């Protein structure tokens, strides 16, 4: 087996060997390995190229903090994902992994020329360079930048995997299953209530897994973890591993992303949990910081905690000759463990006099300790080969050969979730870190994420947070080497000419940060955006505090005085699949279809979306385009009879002793005088006097009205009605029921409409005396009870047959057959729009735009101004609402018979830069034998008979301003 594999490792299954390919090379590993651990086990450190300078990079971390080792992973056909952190992705047999940001290969990358040109691409380079000449932007700069920017290539096919979402509720949510989180969950489970424990790792234990020699309650750490799992499972705690809490929202709603399976296929790949928790215990630990010094980014240079993780979890030694640079205690444990696994280890401590017992322990383990020194440079093109150490950056140095250099720059408590919950962070001088401060959310942090250092403290802290009695907390032996001491973030001194990296993923150096300060950036939020420090996909986990320390030093300020950037969700990169869940494709938005939809499909309809509805727009015959089909459908209605599916109209049944009084208040017209069996067109206004909706209202009984609304307005009209009913006039005895889905509507219109109905309807006298225009009757068609409205939206004699939706098809089929027999046919919404526009009938939202009064659209007579009150009445009384120069509805006829565009501006030819109004509807008309338009024009009614112009791309087009009723102004055809 590979030369860097040791006997340890709790995550891998040594009994089996699997393989994957990395840039075409076959790599072997064990189940449980990550891509990073398998590569390191084979001595491969070079895993990527940096973003800006294309410098060779290896892993920096061993987990979610990894900034360098981003790879593209192919898990099978259609299953390619870029920018995966090699430290997180478990290997599977046959997986194909490719490195990124290099060409032609990782070892020989042409982009590395950027590293040599780095003097010319400092912080803010884009902002400074691509300003001039302006004409270069679109053709030269942007294409080049776009090619160079970004990380991996995007997937090219639709994600074939399944993603799920679910809600969960619990009394206690514990985030993080390290020592503190496990202790908290155990205590919470003892206390009772539903407990959910989640951890982003493959298994529970967290950093405890890297402390094999620690003991808890007399057990080794590994055995205690196993025991804790059993106790939690027996107590009914929901344990979610491979699950990242990525968003902490208001109301203690924490969103988790669970990676269910890496394979995909029939099983759900990822699941989003939306957990509403009574309280949240945040135990997400801390992340180690690198040390900022020149050339601190070569492959083989990594965090000490990463080396510990690779050793203890995967049984991988990151090198044979290891130098550890530290400024605090926690690296000593790692040094001793690495030496114990067979590496030659030299520990370089910045402190002149570290604790004596640590020195003794190192001696016993064969670790060489050099005190009072810091690393100041490294060598090695594709892998670190030596490190220069010196007492100070400008002092005489000496070289130590090595194949791995570990950095222990101190620990940064993860306050992300605390901050997302609305909590403040506060600088703690003793830990030299930002720690969770006050919060209004029902949450508490525990363990190293709130500055607890030793294992015993973390266990006790978690136990107490979980509701346990402090005295009964799990007891750990508190050996020095299980602790981690704080350290001041390293502010590297001025003057280094070589690159000392702060943000590894965005290639931000200490020099860049100082440059930004010199250029006047003072706010940390500005520094962040100008230098891009912390803006990469790792969100500055390893870089923010170092950058802050350097900026503070450059400004001569303290770190807390300089401030901290805001923590935003998601905590770590989360797939769109997780957030999207089931709501994709067919399930993205509900599709509403009418009961007759299948008939329209069978008739070859072309549909349009109206809100969520699918409406048949036209029914083309072979060779017909929309205009041809619509023209034929219009002729059919005008000369014979047409059948229209009007089921999408909103319908509300308004019932009660005060129903009429209620409608008098809600609508501008007077409904209380409407006789039973009659119907009336009515306008609903907003309180500001403008048209909100329109429809026909039928009175079926003294206390019962059938109200129709526009197709798109049904929900909002009901909402407005409910609002006034519940909160303004709660004393009125009236009840509202939406019946939109309960009634299907077949509109039959045209000169032969009455004849068609006569052959079908039972129990209704269709003569105009017995059943006049704007009346409603109840009868039967094909044995089904129907409500028939005699109304017209076309200008022809018309009937709208309301059928209970579940009986719609037999009625529709009977009517369709009769219509066809009478020489008519189906027509769609496009023809309906043309027919209504020829009559000057408005569509709310087409002619009106939220600033039109009834009088503006020629419907002033629909307002019962003598009513003492109705919604919108007071506003209509304002002088401005009666200004004769308001925009008014007119029709426009182009002198050259051209078709205008909707939305174009109406102008006076004498001063064409001044808009007089706009075109609201425009159609070709076979009935009129020419195109026409409706428009809203200032003082339009006073301009009837004059000539204006409409501005088009080709210049002004002369138009005649005419009355909006172009077809049958006398209305004679409504009663044929």
């Amino acid at each position, binding site marked *: 087996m590979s030369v860097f594999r040791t006997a340890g490792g709790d995550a891998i299954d040594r009994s089996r060997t699997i393989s994957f390919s990395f840039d075409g090379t076959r790599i072997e590993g064990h189940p449980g390995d990550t891509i990073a651990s398998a590569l390191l086990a084979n001595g491969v450190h070079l895993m990527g190229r940096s973003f800006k300078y294309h410098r060779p990079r290896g892993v920096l971390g061993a987990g979610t903090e990894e900034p360098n080792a981003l790879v593209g992973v192919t898990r099978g056909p259609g299953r390619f994902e870029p920018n995966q952190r090699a430290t997180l992705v478990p290997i599977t047999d046959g997986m194909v992994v490719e490195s990124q940001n290099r060409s032609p290969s990782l070892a020989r990358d042409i982009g590395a020329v950027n590293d040599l040109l780095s003097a010319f691409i400092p912080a803010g380079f884009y902002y400074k360079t691509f300003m001039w000449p302006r004409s270069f932007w679109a053709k030269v700069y942007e294409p080049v930048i776009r090619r160079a920017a970004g990380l991996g290539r995007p997937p090219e096919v639709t994600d074939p995997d399944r993603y799920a979402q679910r809600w969960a509720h619990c009394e206690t949510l514990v985030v993080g299953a390290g020592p503190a989180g496990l202790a908290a969950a155990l205590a919470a489970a003892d206390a009772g209530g539903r407990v959910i424990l989640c951890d982003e790792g493959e298994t529970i234990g967290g950093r405890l897994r890297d402390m094999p020699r620690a003991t808890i309650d007399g057990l080794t750490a590994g055995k205690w973890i196993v025991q804790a799992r059993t106790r939690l499972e027996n107590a009914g705690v929901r344990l979610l591993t491979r699950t990242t809490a990525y968003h902490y929202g208001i109301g203690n709603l924490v969103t988790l992303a669970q990676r269910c399976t890496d394979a995909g296929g029939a099983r759900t790949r990822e699941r989003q949990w939306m957990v509403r928790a009574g309280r949240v215990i945040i135990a997400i630990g801390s992340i180690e910081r690198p040390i900022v010094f020149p050339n601190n980014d070569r492959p083989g240079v990594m965090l000490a905690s990463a080396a510990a993780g690779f050793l203890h979890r995967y049984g991988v030694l990151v090198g044979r000759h290891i130098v550890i640079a530290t400024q605090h205690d926690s690296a000593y444990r790692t040094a001793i463990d690495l030496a114990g696994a067979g590496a030659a280890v030299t520990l370089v401590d910045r402190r002149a006099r570290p604790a004596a017992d640590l020195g003794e322990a190192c001696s016993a383990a064969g670790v060489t300790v050099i005190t009072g020194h810091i690393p100041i440079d490294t060598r090695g093109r594709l892998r670190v080969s030596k490190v220069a150490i010196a007492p100070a950056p400008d002092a005489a140095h000496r070289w130590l050969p090595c194949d791995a250099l570990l950095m222990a720059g101190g620990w940064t408590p993860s306050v992300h979730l605390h901050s997302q919950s609305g909590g403040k962070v506060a600088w703690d001088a003793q830990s030299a870190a930002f720690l969770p401060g006050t919060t209004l959310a029902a949450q508490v942090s525990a363990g190293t994420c709130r500055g607890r250092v030793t294992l015993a403290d973390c266990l006790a802290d978690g136990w107490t947070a979980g509701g346990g009695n402090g005295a009964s907390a799990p007891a750990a032996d508190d050996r020095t080497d299980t602790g981690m001491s704080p350290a001041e973030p390293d502010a590297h001194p001025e003057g280094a000419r070589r690159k000392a990296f702060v943000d590894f993923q965005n290639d931000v150096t200490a020099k860049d940060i100082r440059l930004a300060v010199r250029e006047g950036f003072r706010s940390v939020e500005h520094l962040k955006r100008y230098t891009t420090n912390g803006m990469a996909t790792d969100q500055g986990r390893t870089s923010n505090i170092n950058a802050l320390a350097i900026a503070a030093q450059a400004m001569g300020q303290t770190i807390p005085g300089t401030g901290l950037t805001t923590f935003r969700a998601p905590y770590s990169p989360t797939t769109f699949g997780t957030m999207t869940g089931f709501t994709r494709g067919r399930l993205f938005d509900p599709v509403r279809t009418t009961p007759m939809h299948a008939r329209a499909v069978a008739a070859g309809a072309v549909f349009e979306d109206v809100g969520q509805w699918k409406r048949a727009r036209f029914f083309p015959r072979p060779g017909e385009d929309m205009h041809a089909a619509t023209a034929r459908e219009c002729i059919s209605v005008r000369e014979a009879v047409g059948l229209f599916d009007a089921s999408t109209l909103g319908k509300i049944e308004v019932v009660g002793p005060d129903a009429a009084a209620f409608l008098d208040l809600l609508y501008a017209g007077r409904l209380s005088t409407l006789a039973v069996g009659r119907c009336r067109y009515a306008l609903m206004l907003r309180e500001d006097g403008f048209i909100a909706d329109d429809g026909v209202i039928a009175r079926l009984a003294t206390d019962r009205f059938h109200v129709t609304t526009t197709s798109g307005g049904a929900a909002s009209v009901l909402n407005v009605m409910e609002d006034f009913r519940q*909160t303004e006039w709660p004393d009125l005895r009236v009840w509202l029921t939406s019946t939109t889905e309960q009634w299907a509507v077949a509109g039959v219109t045209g000169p032969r409409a009455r004849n068609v109905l006569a052959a079908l309807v039972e129990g209704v006298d269709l003569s105009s005396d017995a059943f006049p225009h704007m009346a409603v009757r109840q009868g039967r068609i094909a044995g089904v009870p129907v409500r028939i409205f005699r109304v017209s939206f076309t200008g022809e004699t018309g009937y709208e047959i309301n059928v209970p939706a579940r009986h719609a098809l037999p009625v529709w089929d009977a009517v369709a057959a009769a219509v066809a027999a009478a020489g008519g046919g189906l027509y769609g919404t496009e023809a309906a729009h043309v027919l209504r526009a020829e009559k000057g009938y408005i569509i709310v939202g087409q002619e009106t735009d939220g600033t039109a009064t009834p009088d503006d659209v020629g419907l002033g007579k629909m307002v019962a101004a003598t009513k003492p009150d109705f919604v919108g009445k007071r506003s209509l009384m304002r002088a401005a609402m009666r200004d004769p120069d308001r925009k008014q509805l007119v029709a426009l006829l182009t002198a050259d018979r051209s078709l205008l565009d909707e939305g174009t501006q109406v102008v006076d030819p004498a001063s064409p830069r001044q808009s007089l109004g706009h075109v609201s509807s425009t159609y070709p008309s076979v009935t009129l034998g020419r195109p026409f338009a409706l428009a809203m024009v200032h003082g339009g009614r006073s301009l009837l008979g004059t000539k204006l112009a409409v501005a088009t791309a080709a210049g002004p087009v002369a138009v005649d301003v005419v009355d909006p009723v172009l077809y049958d102004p006398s209305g004679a055809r409504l009663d044929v």
Partner: protein
Amino acid sequence: MLLIECPHCGPRAEIEFRYSGEAHMVRPAAAAACDDATWAAYLYLRDNVRGEHAERWRHTHGCGQFFNVVRDTLTDRVVTTYPAGHARSAAGGEI
């Protein structure tokens, strides 16, 4: 996502509700008789409170009832909820 205590149904997620603007806006009793300034104030003037704000919500995907919520606009926390028509002062505290 807010957790809102509907006075009729109990605590529910925000997606079940629809926001409906500031609460306790009194429609002038004799609307047609009031002066332009009074009417304009009713139509357009709102407080934009920094802190506790009384506002109307409707439990659209539940009981359908309008009710009032006091929410702190600084912290986005729901302080209390109470049925429509109840005075704000009388509602403070538990439902």
